[in-house]
Structures are given as structure tokens and as C-alpha cells.
């Protein structure tokens, strides 16, 4: 059993709000965005949304707060009015069958959808007091704060060192680059394997190593949140386990949101799980959100239970 389950069980206070404890100033929403303090967590915000939310069993800060987030590709609506928090320093898994909008939702978090012509997001994603999908918010800045690891490892055709240093260089990092690179590679659990061949091309590594290189590359920019879009789906089981261990470790410092098709993986690595489902009109909706343990052992929605027990998907 993953250790996060113990953490969850030990926590006593069932508070489900964006707790302003340590980072209050950053998390305090501007007046225009203030809502009911409990929005999105532990209660049904809007009965029409039908999403079930479990109460949190621990006190946790909110890294991102989604409110009625919808996404469109041209006239096609991919996701509809999703409201949920992303807890800070936790691993949150987005699960659901293909085409339910998991990846689309993930790509809203760092404005990657901006790169797709005709893509459009509505609603609010609150990040440190700002709505990050506001067109006035600089998408480049958002992506520097919210990193991303992709389904297929995509290292640049450059050396291992340059791959990791890339993000820091474009951000004008002026500190000790060697240390930054080493630190990022250590955190990505890749240092010991590559420390003697940093000049080698990143493409010469194995798939699992490449993916860890991509994680190191994301870490080197020192983001607050790391988004992972099925990061292990192209890897073998051993490499997959390494990535999963790494996600657990990284959650101590970063907020992690991971899209996964693999139910066992969601169960192993995540603290919180959001179950998404698309109806017949192919519009993705949030069905259920809560601590992973509750979602997996005690789903409140029949559809969640059906998916988790493998009846469709």
C-alpha cells in the first residue's frame, strides 16, 4: 500500500478549503474572484454539475482552483464546466476513458491549448491569486511556473547537459549552471546513470532515461507545478516503476497532476483522483473527485465504480 494512504488516514481535520495557512498572501484571491470559501471541495457547488466530491481527510493548500472550466476546439466542446481544486504538494491523478478530456484539461493548466488554432478555454483557473487563463496573463510566464512532461519522451536533439540547461538559459538564469543541472538530474533520479556522459546526446538514452531527462528538464526551470500527460505509457514496467517512485518523491516539493490510463498507476502514485467521463455527445465532465483511497474503495457515483472495476474504458 502506498505510503500516502497512511498520511491521509492520520490526518484528522476534514477541511476542504484552500487553507491560507503558510502561503496566505499568494493564495488569497482578488476580490473579483472571491467565492464561497468552500467552493469546489467537500460540497456540491452546483447541483446541475452532478459531480460528486468527497470530503478531504487532511488539511491541504490549493495549488490550482478550477471554476467552471470549459474547453473548446472550434465548435467542438471537449470539457464542460469542471470545478475542482488541485491540492498543493500532492499528486492528483486525472483518470477516465479515452476522449473524456483528461489531456485537454491538463493542457489548460499551462495554456498549451493556446498553441492549437481554434482552441478556447472558458471559466477560471486560479493560480496564486490570478486567473491563469485570462488572455492578459502571459502564457509564457504561466509555462515557466507550471512545467509539463509529455506522453512520449521528447528530449531535444542536444546533449544531456544542454537539455537540462535549456529552460534555465531561456529564463536568463545567471547562477551556477553546473550545479543546477546536477541538482535537477539528481532530483530526477538520473544523475548516477549519466554523470560521466553529460555531453552525450539526450536521444542516446533509453526511453525511461529520456523521460527522466524530460522531468529533470522541467525541474530545472524550478516550477511550482509539474503536469504529466501519461508519462509512463510509452515505457516498460521497470522504467514505469521508476517514474512512479519519482513522482512520489517529487510531490514533497512540487504539486503534480498526472493524466493516466492505468488505474493501478493512479492508485499507486496519487493522493487525489478526479474521474472524468464523456457522455454520448463526447463532452468531458467531472464525475467524481476526492482522495484516491475513497475514489478507489468507496466511489459514490455508480459510473466511477463501473470504471474502476473495469466495466468500461
Amino acid at each position: 500500500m502506498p505510503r500516502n494512504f497512511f498520511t491521509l488516514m492520520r490526518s484528522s481535520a476534514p477541511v476542504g478549503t484552500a487553507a491560507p495557512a503558510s502561503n496566505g498572501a499568494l493564495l488569497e484571491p482578488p476580490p473579483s474572484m472571491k467565492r464561497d470559501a468552500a467552493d469546489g471541495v467537500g460540497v456540491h457547488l452546483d447541483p446541475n454539475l452532478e459531480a460528486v466530491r468527497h470530503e478531504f481527510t487532511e488539511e491541504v493548500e490549493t495549488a490550482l482552483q478550477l471554476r467552471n472550466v470549459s474547453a473548446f476546439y472550434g465548435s467542438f466542446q471537449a470539457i464542460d464546466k469542471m470545478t475542482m481544486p488541485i491540492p498543493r504538494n500532492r499528486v492528483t491523478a486525472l483518470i477516465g476513458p479515452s476522449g473524456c478530456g483528461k489531456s485537454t484539461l491538463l493542457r489548460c493548466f499551462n495554456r498549451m491549448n493556446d498553441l492549437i488554432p481554434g482552441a478556447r478555454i472558458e471559466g477560471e483557473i486560479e493560480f496564486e491569486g490570478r486567473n491563469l487563463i485570462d488572455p492578459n496573463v502571459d502564457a509564457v510566464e504561466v509555462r515557466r511556473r507550471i512545467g509539463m512532461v509529455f506522453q512520449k519522451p521528447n528530449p531535444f536533439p542536444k546533449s544531456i547537459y544542454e537539455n537540462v540547461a535549456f529552460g534555465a538559459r531561456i529564463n536568463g538564469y545567471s547562477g551556477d549552471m553546473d550545479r543546477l543541472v546536477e541538482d535537477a538530474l539528481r532530483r530526477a533520479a538520473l544523475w548516477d546513470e549519466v554523470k560521466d556522459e553529460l555531453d552525450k546526446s539526450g536521444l542516446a538514452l533509453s526511453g525511461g532515461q529520456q523521460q527522466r531527462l524530460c522531468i529533470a528538464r522541467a525541474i530545472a526551470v524550478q516550477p511550482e507545478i509539474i503536469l504529466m500527460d501519461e508519462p509512463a505509457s510509452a515505457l516498460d514496467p521497470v522504467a514505469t516503476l521508476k517514474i512512479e517512485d519519482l513522482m512520489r518523491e517529487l510531490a514533497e516539493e512540487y504539486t503534480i497532476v498526472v493524466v493516466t490510463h492505468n488505474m493501478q498507476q493512479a492508485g499507486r502514485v496519487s493522493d487525489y483522483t478526479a474521474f472524468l467521463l464523456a457522455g454520448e455527445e463526447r463532452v468531458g465532465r467531472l464525475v467524481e473527485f476526492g482522495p484516491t483511497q475513497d475514489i478507489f474503495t468507496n466511489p459514490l457515483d455508480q459510473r466511477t465504480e463501473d470504471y474502476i472495476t473495469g466495466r468500461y474504458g
Partner: protein
Amino acid sequence: MDGPERDTVRSLLAELWRERLQPSRPGSGRETPTGKLIHGLLFLTALLSAFVTVGIVLVLIFETVEFFREVPFIDFFGSTKWSALFAEKQFGVWALVWGTGMIALIGLAVAIPLGLMAAVFLSEYSPPRVRAVVKPILEVLAGVPTVVFGYFALLSISPVIRDIFGQDVGIYNALSAGIVVGLMIVPIIASLSEDAMRAVPRSLREGAYALGSTRMEVSLRVVLPAAFSGVVASIILAFSRAVGETMAVTIAGGGNPQFGVGPLEAVQTMTAMIVQLSLGDTPTTSIEFKVLFAVAMTLFVLTLGMNFIAQWVSHRFREEYE
């Protein structure tokens, strides 16, 4: 672009694209009589073009050897004086290489920045609709008869140069010819570089964007380096096109085969000299006629060498993305 160059471009492109599609060979099974006939016809046509190429090379070699029987090697490659049509004949080919090289380099200086900027724009910035219009127009530029470019140089570029550098600059000068050659080869660099840049996987761009890169950083630091081999190949091909360019430089370059002259003076390229020598009344047995082949051979070896370098570069620096 002319036939053989287009073929080189095609084969290079095929290399760059790494087409793995091996055409299946239906001919290995049973064939109908009509099928056999068509098979044979196609084989003959393929053979014909191969024969033409081999024939050209053989004629070049044969006539060049004839030339060097009469004129020592050293007088050709060891001299910078050219006066093939005067009573006292000198055949220092470097006078012609100078003109060719200067015009080609001026051309590259114009075409590389313009071509690469156009390629970056088309590949990374332009909306698909704009690209769908602009790229074909750019490629049409490569189909404009080169004689038109020659007159464009004389009528539009040279006057501007004279306005800038003074009226004592001749209307025939290397700068004017070089600029117009540059304009002619912009489509080669722009089109081939753009193809190479678009072949860079989207996942690399996304990876760079996800690290907080601006579009400019993605274009210049990720896409351009990843497409480096294709870009260099396009530049070398453009260079060999500039070296082989004939009509525009014959018209605009003047007829002054002199080693060491500056860009504001008239020069003569190898190609322009070949035109001059082969016009009209040069007897086919004369030495002036034979030197034509020696010059052509030099040109041939030069452009062939450039094409080999282009091939080598595109192999050597090819980035494997997966």
C-alpha cells in the same frame, strides 16, 4: 531550377525525409505482354537519361584532355590572367573563378538571411492560410527565366548601386549581379529550409514551449538547430546554383575576366565566359573552343563537389529524433 539540379534537390529531399517506404516490386511476378512493353519502355527512358549524363561527362573529359595537350596544366591553374580571345592567349582560370566566387558569395550574403527568415516565418509564424499562398509564390520566383533577372539587375539594381556609391560605378558590376543571383536563390534556401524545419517533430516544439519558451526561442533554439542539416544542405545547394548561374551574370556582370577586382567593378564568371566563347564564330578546332570545355569541367567538378558536401553534411549532422 533546371533539370539536373532539381533532381539533386529531389534526391536530397528524399534523404532528408528519410523515406522508409520501399516501393513494392510487382514486376517480380507474372507480367502481361503490355506490362512487359511498358516495363521495357520505362527502362529505356531511365537508361537514356543515364546515358546522357555519362555522355556529357565523357565529352567534357575528352575535350578537356585535348585542351591540356596544347596548354600546360600550370598555365590554366597556375595563372590569374585570362585573355583567351586576344592574340597573346592566356588561360588563367582563377580570373574567372574570382568573378564566379564573388558573385556567388554576394548572392549567399543576400539569400541566407532572407531565405532563413522566410523559412522561419513560413514554418513557425505564418497561419496555414498565409503559408498556402506565400510558399507557392516564393517557389514561382525560382521559375522566372533568368534572363529576366539579368535585366532586372541592369534596370533596377545597378541604378540604385550607382546612386549609393557614385555615378562612376559602371552599370555592369559584380555587386548588382550578385544581388540578383541572391534573389534567385532565396526560394531554394527558403523552401528547402522550411521543409526541413517543418519536418521537426511537433513534440520538440511542445517540449520547448512547455519550458516557457517564446515563439522566437522555439524557432531559433530548438527548431532551427534540429533542422540544421537540412538548412546547411539548402545553403550549399543554393551556392552551387549560384556558381552555375549563367544568364543573369552574363548580362549584369560585365565581361571583365580579372583576378582581384572589387565588387563594384565588372567581372566575368566561368559561365559567362563559356557563353562568350561558344557564341558564333569560334572554330571548333581552335584552342578558344577547347578551353571552353576545360572551364566547363572546372565548373562541373566544383558544383559536383558542393553537392557531395551537401550530401555529407546532411548525413553527418542529421538529428535523429527518436
